């Protein structure tokens, strides 16, 4: 800062102009330079905040085709996430061999033989299933659930939880997964243990969620809702039992829509969660011109929107009917399900399988839904 006498007399235009011309040149240069610098800073800050690598790989559209056929390899995913898988221990193998030699036919098996057939009355078949899907999916050895002296006993609480989980898995596959509206030729993937657990027995609790929201598909957040998928409103919403019509998150206004934007904020938070969970942009499911539409302008049907609506119903079912019955060792610590629980940033969940055995319909499952939730009416072209 400096002070100086103004030596320019009023009306001395030429002197003033010479100075002004220089200033104007500087102005032009300065404006361009500042604009470039500001733009550069914004880009730099963005890249820094996202991490250089993730900024360039944020969207995963390149990993699937439109029908969602390409599947992410579960082993590659587990390796990338550095999940420690505990192999079946030598002690457990020895104990199993001893058990199997004494009991070639299963003892006290209650679920697998119901859903997967008589083959599963053989101890060896059960072991194969357990080793591949349960032990492999949770990354644990047999003794995590079993008493190695008596594989049939239920003296560890984990085993009861696992049994209930198997019932839930098969029932959910039968009710929801097998009825996903999908185009002809799109493969059908089954839920298995690894779909949610991806190599860890306890990976979905409130403590972990609070410490690392991004690991639960909750990025950003903020008031007033954050990105909780299962909220009070989703728990209350029901498909019409007659028509199957349901409005989980629809917000486009009509003349009767009540005032307020809270429902829209909720909708947007859920949608944002879904983009993070599946690694896609809005236009994966939506026609950008009119989000309420199931068709894009050229007349092609947005299958993913119809599928997402169906899957929201499944998440609701998990929260209402199955979570309360799982007999978790510490139920109060378990987090509510959401899309990321299985999808992990991919359209097809890394832990889903299209080779797992298909479950049969069981008339009297070991545990039943607490409430009969009607399927939402499938939206198809």
């Amino acid at each position: 800062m400096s002070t100086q006498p103004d030596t320019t007399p009023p009306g001395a235009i030429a002197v003033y102009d010479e100075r002004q011309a220089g200033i104007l040149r500087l102005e032009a240069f300065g404006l361009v330079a500042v604009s470039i610098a500001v733009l550069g800073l914004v880009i730099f800050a963005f890249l820094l905040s996202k991490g250089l690598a993730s900024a360039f790989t944020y969207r995963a559209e390149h990993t699937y085709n439109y029908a969602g056929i390409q599947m992410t390899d579960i082993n590659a995913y587990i390796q990338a996430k550095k999940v420690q898988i505990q192999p079946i221990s030598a002690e457990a193998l020895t104990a199993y061999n001893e058990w199997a030699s004494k009991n070639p036919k299963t003892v006290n098996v209650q679920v697998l033989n119901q859903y997967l057939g008589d083959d599963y009355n053989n101890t060896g078949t059960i072991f194969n299933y357990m080793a591949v899907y349960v032990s492999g999916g949770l990354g644990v050895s047999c003794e995590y659930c079993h008493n190695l002296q008596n594989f049939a006993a239920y003296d560890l609480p984990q085993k009861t939880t696992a049994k209930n989980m198997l019932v839930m898995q098969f029932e959910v596959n039968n009710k929801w997964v097998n009825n996903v509206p999908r185009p002809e030729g799109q493969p059908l993937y089954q839920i298995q243990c690894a779909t949610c657990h991806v190599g860890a027995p306890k990976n979905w609790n409130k403590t972990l969620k609070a410490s690392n929201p991004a690991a639960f598909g909750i990025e950003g957040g903020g008031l007033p809702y954050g990105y909780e998928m299962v909220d009070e409103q989703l728990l209350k919403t029901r498909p019409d039992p007659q028509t199957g019509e349901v409005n989980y998150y629809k917000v486009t206004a009509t003349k009767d829509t009540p005032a307020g934007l809270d429902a829209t904020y909720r909708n947007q938070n859920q949608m944002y969660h879904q983009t993070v969970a599946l690694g896609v942009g809005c236009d994966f499911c939506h026609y950008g011109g009119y989000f309420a539409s199931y068709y894009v302008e050229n007349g092609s049907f947005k299958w993913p929107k119809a599928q997402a609506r169906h899957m929201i119903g499944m998440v609701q079912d998990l929260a209402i009917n199955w979570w309360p019955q799982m007999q978790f060792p510490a139920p109060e610590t378990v987090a509510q399900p959401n899309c990321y629980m299985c999808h992990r940033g991919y359209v097809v969940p890394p832990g889903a399988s299209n080779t797992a055995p298909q479950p049969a319909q069981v008339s009297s499952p070991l545990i039943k839904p607490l409430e009969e939730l009607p399927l939402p009416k499938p939206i198809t072209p």
Partner: protein
Amino acid sequence: MASEITRVESADWRTTRRFYLKFLEGLADTQIGPLYIGVWGILALVFFAVTVFVILFGYLEQVGFNPILFVREFPVLSVEPPPPSYGLKLAPLAEGGYWQIATFFLTLSIVFWLIRIWSRAIANRIRPNVAIVFTSAIFLYAAIYIIHPISMGAWNEAPGHGLRAQLVWANAFSIKYGNFYYNPFHMVSIFGLLGSCLLLAMHGATILAVVRLNAHREIDEAESSTEGTHRAQLLWRWVMGFNATATSIHTWAIAIAVVSMVAGALGVIFSGTLEPDWFQWACRAGIVPGVIQPGTTSVAACLR
């Protein structure tokens, strides 16, 4: 005092309570001051300070008065309006009361600032054009924060006070009302916004182009055109076939900026009150085709 002010370039004016910031040479005039405070200025600043205090206190309360969290979460912190259940009633502080207080004082602050600009223009013996044009921006503010929420019956329709909250509101508002891009008032508003930029760029570039011919002395030029003006105007006659004058270009600039603000405000006010779904309006207007309904194979008529 007012009688002493004749021209901005007057030596008397420039030597009264002056000091210079040389580093501003490239971006602005180097002279700082004199600054007029006055009653309206004080009122505006005090009420604005109250607004900022209430908003920041709301932020701090949300982060448990943790300064590190406050800094880290600042871009997403927001003082939100009350939930829809409160309608237009007063709400408890944590449930929108902060927003109501902040918005009340912000509105007063803006109005007092308008009066300050107006009164300074009168004292300066110039027409209050700046104040008049400022009312168009205030109209847009009022439409978003006051008129539309009142006409819908809930403060919840207004944006929160926060950086992210503004973006979230713009997105949610568009989503709720069909698609704001198909709101014809929004279309006009965007035309005005982009048109303002275009006009400003054309004008700025033109004047800079003829600086060596003294055209930057716009007031002199307006009173008595010189070679700079003539050449600048010739440029546009060559390029477009016609030109604005050194005076009318500023009228154009005001008009198109005001159109942008007023049209934007009307677009907000009419959303939900006259038209709940602008995509369907665009459909009825023949701008977009109707969307196909599941279970059919052809484009349906507009839904509503």
